[in-house]
């Protein structure tokens, strides 16, 4: 009797299927700080991209308030040394900082994945050449090199021609002329050039391991092309570490861009990123040091949220990947 009951109820009733996404989200949401991080990051994005629509000020309009104005209802973060509204500038700076970092991260990840996958899959001289290049670039002192290249580009030394629709699009998002947007995009290219190497190495390792698996051989035996195997088997199967590394890279790029802008070789005035706003208050730091607090806080919040999210993603996507 009891057996019959079991059969009718528990065994035949198939357990509800848990999708991969639900599983990952379940593990991710256990990391409370990461969930907070997601909200903070969403908040920063919304404030930066939607916030300016509600601001009565132009980010570059001077004397909308007093010089070094205090915190008032009209200017919640005060006004700066030429009377610009700091809050409006912060939001526009967020557009530059966040979007620049996003572009750099996505582009460098794409390059890293392609180089790593091709290099790991084909091996031979392609692999040797690519990995020597990666080794070489990883032994270089990155920060000073970035500074030198950026310093040169500011003086017009790196002529990179972007298609006009691209500069117009970014100019529209950043509320600046296409020429100025081009300057920021050159900075993005410089950052991309030094950002893809570690991911290429990571993906290559993954692909080397995956290629030895039986299903890769089976796909080959079935006559699948190399491109198909790389795109449909190698890359999707190494997606977990790619996502994790990309998340951490995003945080890294935000900090690197801010550091470059902070010493004066990143985003150039009158455009501003969070890093260059921090640079802007350096001269007055002994008079009103609290002015350094807000732009830095934005960078700190963004980078910490991303680090928490990356940590939770690592646990959620691939529990074996514990570092």
């Amino acid at each position, binding site marked *: 009797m009891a057996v019959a009951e079991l059969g009718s109820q528990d065994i035949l009733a198939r357990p509800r299927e848990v999708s991969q996404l639900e599983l990952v989200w379940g593990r991710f949401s256990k990391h409370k*700080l990461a969930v907070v991080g997601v909200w903070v990051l969403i908040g920063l994005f919304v404030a930066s991209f939607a916030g300016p629509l509600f601001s009565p000020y132009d980010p570059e309009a001077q004397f909308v308030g007093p010089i070094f104005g205090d915190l008032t209802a009209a200017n919640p973060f005060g006004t700066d040394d030429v009377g610009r509204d700091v809050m409006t500038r912060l939001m526009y700076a967020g557009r530059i900082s966040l979007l620049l970092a996003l572009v750099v991260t996505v582009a460098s990840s794409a390059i890293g994945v392609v180089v790593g996958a091709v290099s790991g899959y084909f091996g031979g001289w392609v692999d040797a050449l690519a990995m020597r290049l990666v080794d*070489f670039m990883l*032994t*270089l*002192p*990155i*920060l*000073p*090199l970035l*500074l*030198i*290249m950026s*310093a*040169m580009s500011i*003086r*017009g*030394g*790196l*002529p990179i021609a972007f298609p006009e629709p691209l500069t117009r699009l970014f100019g529209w998002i950043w509320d600046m002329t296409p020429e100025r947007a081009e300057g920021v995009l050159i900075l993005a290219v410089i950052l991309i050039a030094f950002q893809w190497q570690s991911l290429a190495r990571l993906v290559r390792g993954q692909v080397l391991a995956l290629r030895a698996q039986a299903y890769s051989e089976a796909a080959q035996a079935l006559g699948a092309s190399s491109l198909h195997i790389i795109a449909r088997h190698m890359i999707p199967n190494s997606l977990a570490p790619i996502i994790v590394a990309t998340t951490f890279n995003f*945080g890294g790029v935000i*900090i690197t861009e*801010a*550091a470059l802008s*902070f*010493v*004066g*070789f990143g985003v150039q005035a009158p455009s501003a990123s969070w*890093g260059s706003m*921090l640079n802007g208050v*350096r001269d007055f*730091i*002994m008079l009103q*040091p*609290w002015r*350094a*607090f807000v732009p*830095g*806080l934005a*960078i*700190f919040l963004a*980078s*910490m949220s*991303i*680090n*928490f999210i990356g*940590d939770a993603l690592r646990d959620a996507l691939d529990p074996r990947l514990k*570092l």
Partner: protein
Amino acid sequence: MTNYLIRRLGESFLVLVLSSGVVFAMLYLAPGGPMTEILEFRRQSSRFPVNPEDIERLKRQFDLDLPLWQAYTRWAFGWPVLDDRPNRAGVIRGDLGLSWRVSQNEPTLQVLLRPLPNTLILMTTSTLLALVVAVPIGVYSAVNQYSRVDYLVTAGTFLGISMPVFWLGSMLILLFSFQFKQWGLPYLPPGSAVAARDYVLPLLGEIEAGTLVDRGLRLIMPTLTLSLLQMAAWSRFTRASMLEVLRQDYVRTARAKGLIERFVIARHALRNALIPLITIVTLALPGLYGGAIITETIFNYQGMGLLFIDALTQSDWPVALAYLMVLSVLTVGANVLADVVYTLVDPRIRIA
């Protein structure tokens, strides 16, 4: 081992030649690079108009009229020797050329060596501080895994890793210089490595410029700023490495034979856990050195990083290039050193 070392050093030399070549070429080919800067400078500083002969002479003086490869080999190796211009010994023999702007016509090496002591002091103190703090914290939180302190340490390391150094520096100035001054406490002077003149601090009295106390006070904030990131990263690493070692059989054996726990941790676990840390620290040193660029800028601390920023701002390419060379040598050297030290401290690793 000897063969390995020779091969590694050979490779390192190639890397250096290649990287210096790339950077040299970039600076050399940059349109409107050095010449415009120099001519602009001459125009401002002299009453005489710049004539074509002057331009030719200047170009010759800086080897800018030569083809790229010749300019590079002359800069790097002092070859080929040409009749119409002074000989150069080349970087390989310690001749890094003359500075253009930061300290005009002074040998770059001298310019570079002047702020070296300040940077070395800053690096040594912050590395030591980071190690002294990170290792005990990492060990403690590993031994007491999942305790409240462990969670606190983990949260703290995340804070440290995410903290932008330039913001941390500004916040330290806000607290220790600005607020302390308002509260009437002995505040920390926020700029320069040495004071220009004597000054008075509350409670501490008069501080003589250039004394040990003066230098020490001015070192505190840069050291804290520079070491925080390393502190966070290294304590995290020590914790992970310690956790792994504590699971090993020989630790269980040591406990089983009745050793007291403290002895097991200090003698058997810690010593093995620290081996990978040696590599991490060695590899981090050039990064610390490069990271000092930002820290030195915040505190206006006269080190090599600040010199590099000055050189970039004033387009003094020889100085910038020389700084980059020093840093490249350090980075490449640290890579070789890390491998060698690793084999020395861990006899299980053999180099083929």
